[in-house]
């Protein structure tokens, strides 16, 4: 891990010093021992702030959209899952390839913040992270904290499809073993939900959607959401708002509509990076929605996980005469 960090800093410093990029978007130490924070290095000196490890869950690709209308060249640090989002943005012409340097990092899995937080002594400062193969060890000023990888990684990591970036101009380290579990049934939870009868599905999601705060963190963190003006944020005066979807009313039907529409809009775009579920402050199992879309797109249209390459076409952006349909 240390070599990866060194390589990353060296390459970032080189890119910035040579003016090859104006900014490197990566990770830096966070304000507690269980997290990192996005870092926007603009000078070779700031490249020394960059870090990498199992506390880098954020998908930084989303930030590219903030700079899509500028003419500067940027570098972004990506894990395997995040890299699919790079391909998706390139495919949608949201960011030009020639303005982008992709710095890939080999990922052995990300620790689940919610699970590790209670194990960390208050006020502990992170000094180092060790990978023993079985465990990830956070070395802090208040002791060494061991987290077995088979219990403390994020759920998405156990179903990891690509722990090495699918697109990268620079790779900061040698391939590492994937955290994916052998023989793990990818769609098990989705299958379970499908097996419920419709009333049970309804009450399950009613319960989840009624807890939604409508903070829109799921949308704002989502690299598939690249619209300049979101359908939920149309500039419509208050007295006309009841005529459109997406008012700020927090009610079960409004919330259900919000999530159902989001579900449809990310079809063919969702790369299953899991950011929506990670950022949700009330723990709505959002990936259970979007993985349903992935599954159906696979079954109905033979579509793989979006962003695996820039060649695949989104099932909703092409028509084939043999597409399944029921409306003729």
């Amino acid at each position, binding site marked *: 891990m240390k070599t990866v960090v060194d390589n990353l800093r060296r390459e970032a410093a080189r890119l910035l010093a040579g003016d090859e990029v104006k900014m490197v978007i990566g990770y830096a130490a966070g*304000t507690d021992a269980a997290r990192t924070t996005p870092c*926007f290095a603009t000078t070779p000196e700031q490249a020394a702030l960059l870090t990498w490890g199992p506390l880098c869950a954020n998908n930084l690709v989303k930030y590219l959209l903030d700079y899509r209308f500028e003419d500067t060249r940027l570098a972004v640090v990506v894990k395997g899952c995040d890299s699919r989002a790079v391909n998706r943005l390139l495919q949608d012409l949201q960011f030009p390839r020639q303005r982008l340097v992709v710095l890939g990092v080999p990922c052995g899995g990300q620790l689940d913040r919610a699970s590790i937080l209670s194990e960390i002594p208050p006020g502990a400062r992170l000094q180092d992270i060790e990978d023993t193969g079985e465990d990830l060890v956070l070395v802090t000023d208040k002791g060494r904290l061991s987290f077995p990888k088979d219990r403390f990684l994020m759920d998405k990591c156990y179903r990891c499809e690509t722990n090495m970036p699918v697109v990268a101009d620079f790779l900061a380290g040698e391939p590492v073993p994937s955290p994916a579990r052998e023989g793990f049934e990818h769609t098990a939870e989705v299958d379970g939900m499908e097996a419920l009868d419709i009333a049970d599905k309804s009450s399950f999601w009613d319960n989840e959607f009624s*807890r939604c705060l409508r903070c829109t963190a799921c949308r704002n963190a989502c690299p598939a959401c690249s619209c300049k003006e979101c359908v939920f944020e149309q500039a419509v005066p208050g*007295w006309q708002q009841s005529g459109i979807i997406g008012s700020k009313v927090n009610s079960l039907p409004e919330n259900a509509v919000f999530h159902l529409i989001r579900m449809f809009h990310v079809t063919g775009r969702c790369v299953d990076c899991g950011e929506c579920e990670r950022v949700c402050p*009330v723990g709505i199992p959002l990936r259970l929605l979007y993985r349903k879309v992935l599954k159906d797109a696979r079954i109905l249209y033979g579509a793989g996980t979006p962003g695996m390459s820039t060649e695949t076409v989104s099932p909703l952006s092409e028509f084939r005469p043999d597409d399944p349909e029921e409306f003729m």
Partner: protein
Amino acid sequence: MSNKTITRDQLATLLDRLVEKNRVIAPVSDNRGVVRFGEIQKAGDIAWGFDQAKVPAKSHFLPQTEELYRYDTSGGELKIEPVPPPRPAVIFGLHPCDLKAVAALDPVFDGAFKDVYYLNKRERTVIIGLSCRKVLPTCFCRSYGIEPTDGQGADLMLTEAGDGYYVEILTPKGEALIRDNAPLFSDAGVAEGRRAKDALAGELAGQFQLNVDLTGVKAKVDTMFEHPYWQELARKCLGCGICTYLCPTCHCFDIIESHSGHRGCRLRCWDSCMFADFTLHTSSHNPRSTKKERVRNRFLHKLSYHDERYGLAGCVGCGRCIAECPVNIDITQIIADIEEVD
């Protein structure tokens, strides 16, 4: 009236009794373990072991979606139907930071313009505060001069002591509640209760991991409006509403119509200064057009504007935004940075 004590069982009985004639709001846990202030039907609904409710109690006084009035224009005539006055309510379980937050909201809605929707609920609500049991890693109320056992702002303040609670009576409203339920309270063990509270206060004071020095921060931040710091800070912001919606002192709202045919209602909904459309004008001009202006506004509001307008801190150090920000924007870090930057 002198202070009292109440046993755990009697407190449950009290809450069960209060439910009969009041809306009782208390910390409740949902199926995912998220604790928020919600209406209870019985004392057993309360998440008794809670440390901090993730969603604060402001939603009782300022609901996320609140009906202001209904109207009907059928027959060519406008009929307005006001909402019925709120039921009397009791809020149980506000920690000192949340008590202080209610105090910070009061002058917003009870200033030159009296907001009847807020004030009607506020006047009809008895607040039962509860001393903290522990200090969380994100707590920094002490930096704002709040002790985790402070009862200021509560009508009654409870502190766990032995098998029950030490009850401080702080206002006439609190006194009336005790008088109406006198048999449930006791005079026994009041001195021990007082001692237990003092001991707890001392113990909790030593548990704080986060401390910030606010000396000179307002004066400094007031000179920083054009500082490049905000641009750098705002880069990582996603522009979601987590910090504002979970903040116990944030209170921005939007007013919208909901109508179908001749009938409709006017609604007040939470809004967030972090949202891009918050300050969007009809002309399509947006004075806070980028994340820089929006992030700057939020922190200036917390660290300066609220103080300027009401002489009260706009932040109470509850730490919810620190705990939940998905990109680790941390107000204590920002306060430290403000002191550092040139």
